[in-house]
């Protein structure tokens, strides 16, 4: 079978680097407002009815949104098996904490309003808050650790040895990145509530969203400065054949100060990502203040995309640098699946991703409009 050679290995690796970016952005934008809304639940909703409005604003869509995460996990497994193996086993306890939070979420949606007891409902509200807060924070913390390099190496047989600890992940720079992620998703959740709710809920969300938008700009800017001043990047120190076998140990790499800014210097157009990352939250802020809900949601979505892409642009071609043994660092050119698997997965994605986007859009269209709080109060037509 030589069909897969229609597209070169190099191109396929680039496509898959971009596609993982698309999936992460897709997850952060769609499930991001679910997480943000969960975080805002106890603050933007004061009465039980208000909280049900908030929950029902994401009720019909969170399941589909969460599949972006599942799909992201599957796609990383299929296209970047070593990234999948190293990151999830290395960040083992952090992943466990995220999983526990994410397990609580589906159940909380389903179970919360099935009993009248206020204590029962308060407990599931707390679960929804945790289910939003913990993943939002930890995904950012993980990103912060990836930027600093992760302490792993390979044995002769390519077994992975990870020599870090859970608390080692919670270093100042990583926590700063966690706060960026938290602020950006709260801004996004608040913008979503602008679109889907009205009255007191929307007003409170608008206030929290405005604060979060300002914090996003400040924290993201601070993280950029901290990255420049305190974090050394990595660079390749040997030639890596772009169509060579996927074995990270065939190259050499080293720590180098300022290396994470080398791509921006070499290709000035890539500055677009960090600049948009700083400007779009301000746009979201302006729209929130002007009570223009849909533009605010779009601006906050753009902020998320720009912030995530700026990390990718800074690190390329590195995906997961190793602080323990820089040679072991995973890059675009030496940690992918085989040529044939990448090709098969590109075909599958080309066929199905547009279909997914089409029916997801249709579902959002059907559900368009504000959540009807009267209908919730009457217990008609709403599941949660």
């Amino acid at each position: 079978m030589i069909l897969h050679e229609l597209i070169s290995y190099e191109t396929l690796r680039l496509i898959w680097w971009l596609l993982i970016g698309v999936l992460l952005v897709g997850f952060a934008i769609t499930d991001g407002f679910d997480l943000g809304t969960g975080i805002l639940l106890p603050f933007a909703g004061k009465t039980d009815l208000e909280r049900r409005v908030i929950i029902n604003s994401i009720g019909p869509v969170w399941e589909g949104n969460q599949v972006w995460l599942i799909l992201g996990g599957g796609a990383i497994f299929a296209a970047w098996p070593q990234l999948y193996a190293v990151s999830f086993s290395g960040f083992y306890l952090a992943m466990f904490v995220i999983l526990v939070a994410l397990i609580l979420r589906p159940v909380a949606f389903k179970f919360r309003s099935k009993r009248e007891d206020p204590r029962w409902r308060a407990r599931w509200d707390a679960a929804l808050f945790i289910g939003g807060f913990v993943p939002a924070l930890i995904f950012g913390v993980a990103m912060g650790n990836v930027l600093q390099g992760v302490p792993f190496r390979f044995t002769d047989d390519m077994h992975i040895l990870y020599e870090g600890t859970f608390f080692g992940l919670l270093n100042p720079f990583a926590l700063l990145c966690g706060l960026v992620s938290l602020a950006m998703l709260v801004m996004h959740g608040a913008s979503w509530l602008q679109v889907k709710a009205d009255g007191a809920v929307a007003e409170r969300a608008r206030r929290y969203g405005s604060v979060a938008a300002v914090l996003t700009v400040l924290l993201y800017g601070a993280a950029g400065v901290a990255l420049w001043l305190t974090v050394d990047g990595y660079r390749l120190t040997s030639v890596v054949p772009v169509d060579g076998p996927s074995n990270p140990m065939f190259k050499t790499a080293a720590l180098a100060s300022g290396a994470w800014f080398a791509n921006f210097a070499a290709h000035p157009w890539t500055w677009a990502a960090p600049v948009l990352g700083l400007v779009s939250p301000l746009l979201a802020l302006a729209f929130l203040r002007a009570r223009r809900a849909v533009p605010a949601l779009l601006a906050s979505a753009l902020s998320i995309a720009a912030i995530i892409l700026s990390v990718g642009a800074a690190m390329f071609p590195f995906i997961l640098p190793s602080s323990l043994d820089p040679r072991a660092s995973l890059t675009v050119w030496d940690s992918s699946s085989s040529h044939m698997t990448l090709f098969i997965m590109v075909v599958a994605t080309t066929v199905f991703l547009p279909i997914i986007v089409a029916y997801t859009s249709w579902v959002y269209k059907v559900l368009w409009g504000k959540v009807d709080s009267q209908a919730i109060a009457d217990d008609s037509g709403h599941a949660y």
Partner: protein
Amino acid sequence: MDLDIVALSRLQFALTALYHFIFIPLTIGLSVILAIMETVYVMTGRTIWRDMTKFWGVLFGINFAMGVATGIVMEFQFGMNWSYYSHYVGDIFGAPLAIEGLMAFFLEATFVGIFFFGWDKLSRRAHLATTWLVAIGSNFSALWILIANGWMQNPVGAAFNPQTMRMEVTDFGAVLTNPVAQAKFVHTVSAGYTVAAIFVLGVSAWYLLKGRHVQLAKRSLTVAASFGLAASLSVAVLGDESGYLASEHQKMKLAAIEAMWETEPAPAAFTAIGFPDQAARETHYAIHIPMVMGLIGTRSLDTEIPGLAQLTERSELLIRDGIKAYDALQTIRAAGPRGVVPEEAQAMFESKGQSLGYALLLKRYVDDPRQATAAQIHQAAQDTVPSVAPLFWSFRVMVGLGMFFILLTGTFFVLSVRRTLDAHRWLLKVAVFAIPLPWVAAEAGWIVAELGRQPWVIEGVLPTAVAVSNLGVTTLLITIAGFAAIYTVLLVVEMKLMLKTIRKGPAELSLASAALPNAQGVLS
């Protein structure tokens, strides 16, 4: 390689997988039953069928949320606990998982929201299409997961690449059309239909016993009995197909299930019951049925099914081949990515490379398989026999229950054709008490399939013991305790909610349909 880490990692995987598998069969089956009920509603316009769809839909939703919650863990657990596995076979195993997300789970999860929230927002036909898309999504989901699982049982279409130190795909078509995957798909999906059918059957029988929601319960019983009869027959027929395939690809599993210690003259007898004793290599108090095993396993009268002793000898030969392959591999790797590989090593690897996995069995005892003693090789060969007693018993529990399900659904099918569903109260009681049994059978089936694969995680390619992540024992204990605690709490809460919903019944819904005269009419 620390054995404790292996045992704990396996324990955690079994715990989370068996737990996930409580919810999945019901999701797969109930989604189809909902689609059938709503189809009747749209075709006949009788609102009681819409009420049925909504009522069983509530139970479906509670169960679905648990399936989603526990499924997230499965998607990441390979990387977390089985990092060498993920590296070694991710090139093949990852693809069906990703395609499952793209093609099936996205469909299912996106439309399930509309299923619940769309009753007033969509036309009847559009809502029906939504329900069918949820059913199709959950069934396709099973297909891709079982293509991945089938490859673990019968790893076709892939070869080892010495440069990357992993298996890579050579023929994706073979992975898709893997006969083991196909048989497993039909068998598992049919099992899911049976779980859901007996669930609906039992709950409806309870309503009839209580004299509540009689119209809804009778119609539900009719759907469940006919659907369940077809499904349970399909499980049995395609279970046979699985047995046939096991004898082609997993002779060891078949021999262990049957506790066949030695090769018997064809056609072999089937051991209906007995007490396997692995240390003594015999089955005490065995009751044999002549010829049956040979017929099921080989579909012929003269093909022998090898026994465990012969298969162990074969393993020992393969381990010795594997050591040669391992040696050649070290030479090839020493030459580097662009170096010249000695022809001898290349030729040796080409001829013995498929036995490489057998050399890795020795890693439990020695770091370099080439240094293994004869005793270690002998022990590693013994290790290729899975635990006989649990397989023997799980298999018999599964098959016995499968027979009972055919009888149960068949009986209710006859009753519903004769319109005497509520004539025999004791039968209704049997149906109520049968509710948990399909789960017992499904979990037993998982144990047969996955325990029977041991000591391999990928049959003949990668031993379970080398596939684990290098985690600490304390770390693993924390997560095992954490998952066990949260899963137990959620299961208790879930069961309570299910029971509460069932007890409450479709109260307001049936009132609405009782107002319509035709809802009291005959079965449509």
